[in-house]
């Protein structure tokens, strides 16, 4: 009993050394997963993961934890599917229960146009082996009796894209799990270590400046999501991103009554019930860019209005808390991953409102890029240079609803 109550630290503190093989900026799920796979698969052990705040302080500790792979482009669907597969064995791999529950995901269509988009997504999904299909109100009623499928609401439900493997996970556990196992292999996690400069000589990275001193290294990976433009400014790499805040909220916990994840693009809302019984709800990014993490009442008002139309039973639920996080939105709703024009500076950005589900495959592929020197095929479509080649990967139809 006493043992159970003891506080656990999942990683050790270290003095900052003057040099490392690889420096990773950002101790979110992406940075820690990258460190883990670099150490595990490529034997690189002199790795420092630096964070200006605490581990998981960014969007990794603020997201609504939805994991799915029913994207619109073959490039996207393939990539996210590989991530879902890694998530399926992650609790075993990291010896940490992540409470991953794949209880199914429904994206509702309330207009002919969105029914068409769902059909297109279902076709693409089938082609690349993602389990997803279009279902109609009778079947929707079976899958999720809580939904109002009558023609009573302003926007009645016409169909839905059903994605059985879609699920939710305990996001903090993903961060801690990767951190704990990376630490075991010798990776150093340095909290409260702010990167204030990136040093480059003759077009090559030579190190980083921090509030705790200068570090020499040949490879720097930026895994800072919403802060990406600010970090890339330090090294002169331009980015096609704007940072917006995204808000979310939870209700008081109640007994289990909703086992599907419900998303509506038309109503701009999504909801799931956590294992603790809280309804976790979200909506769209704030339309203007910025770095001010201030929640708004307007968000709760709009969200509640639409949510009650969809799930009338939620009328009596009380909001427990609300919060915000940064999202780095790209022009095509796809990420930006890999090499830049500065040798040794690798980016992992453009994660908008959908990057948590990609954490394992990001770590896996970025580690492969560094370990082998070759860009893995899976992330080739997401290269930084695509914006100068006008070769975009438009996920607008599958990612514009934030999760």
């Amino acid at each position, binding site marked *: 009993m006493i043992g159970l109550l003891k506080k656990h630290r999942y990683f050790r503190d270290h003095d900052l050394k003057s040099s490392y093989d690889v420096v990773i900026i950002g101790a979110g799920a992406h940075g820690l997963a990258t460190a883990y796979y670099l150490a595990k698969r490529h034997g690189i052990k002199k790795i420092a993961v630096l964070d200006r705040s605490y581990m998981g302080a960014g969007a990794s500790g603020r997201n609504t934890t939805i994991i799915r792979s029913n994207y619109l482009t073959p490039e996207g669907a393939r990539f996210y599917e590989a991530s879902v597969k890694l998530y399926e064995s992650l609790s075993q791999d990291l010896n940490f229960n992540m409470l991953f529950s794949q209880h199914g995901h429904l994206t509702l269509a309330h207009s002919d146009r969105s029914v068409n988009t769902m059909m297109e997504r279902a076709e693409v999904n089938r082609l690349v082996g993602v389990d997803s299909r279009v279902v109609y109100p009778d079947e929707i009623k079976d899958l999720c009796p809580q939904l109002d499928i009558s023609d009573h609401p302003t926007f009645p439900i016409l169909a839905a894209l059903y994605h059985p493997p879609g699920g939710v996970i305990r996001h903090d556990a993903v961060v801690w799990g990767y951190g704990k196992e990376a630490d075991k292999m010798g990776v150093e996690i340095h909290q409260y270590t702010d990167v204030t400069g990136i040093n480059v000589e003759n077009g090559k990275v030579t190190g980083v400046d921090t509030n705790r001193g200068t570090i020499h290294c040949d490879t720097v990976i930026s895994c800072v999501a919403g802060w990406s433009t600010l970090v890339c400014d330090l090294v002169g790499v331009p980015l096609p991103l*704007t940072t917006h805040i995204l808000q979310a909220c939870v209700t008081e916990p109640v007994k289990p009554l909703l086992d599907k994840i419900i998303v509506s693009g038309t109503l701009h809302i999504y909801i799931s019930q956590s294992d603790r019984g809280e309804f976790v709800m979200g909506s769209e990014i*704030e339309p203007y860019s*910025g770095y001010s993490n201030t929640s708004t009442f*307007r968000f709760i008002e709009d969200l509640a209005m639409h949510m009650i139309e969809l799930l009338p039973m939620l009328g009596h639920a009380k909001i427990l808390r609300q919060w915000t996080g940064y999202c780095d939105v790209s022009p095509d709703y796809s990420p930006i991953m890999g090499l830049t024009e500065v040798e040794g500076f690798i980016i992992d950005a453009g994660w908008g409102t959908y990057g948590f589900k990609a954490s394992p495959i990001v770590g896996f592929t970025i580690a492969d890029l560094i370990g082998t020197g070759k860009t893995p095929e899976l992330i080739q479509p997401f290269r930084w240079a695509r914006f100068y080649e006008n070769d975009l990967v438009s996920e607008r139809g599958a990612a514009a609803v934030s999760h």
Partner: protein
Amino acid sequence: MSFILSCPNCGPRAVDEYAYGGEVTERARTSGDERALFHYLYFRTNTGGDQREWWFHSSGCREWFQAERNTTRNEVLQVARPGELAPSREPAGG
């Protein structure tokens, strides 16, 4: 409402009355430089600080105007008709 923005025509209103038009960018030249064109199309400054930006008063007079806003504090510093913003208080990069 999350902050108040003043339309040069209509005065102070909740930000929800407006549509955001993004940061003010310099129009690309009609030269043959593709890279410059794509840079103009896609790349953004995304400042954490004072930013000049476009707004459209969609639920009001339906006119476009410009504002200077501090993006970390969400504080509106000035608004003006297009092209009429006063020089920034701090020099760029300050």
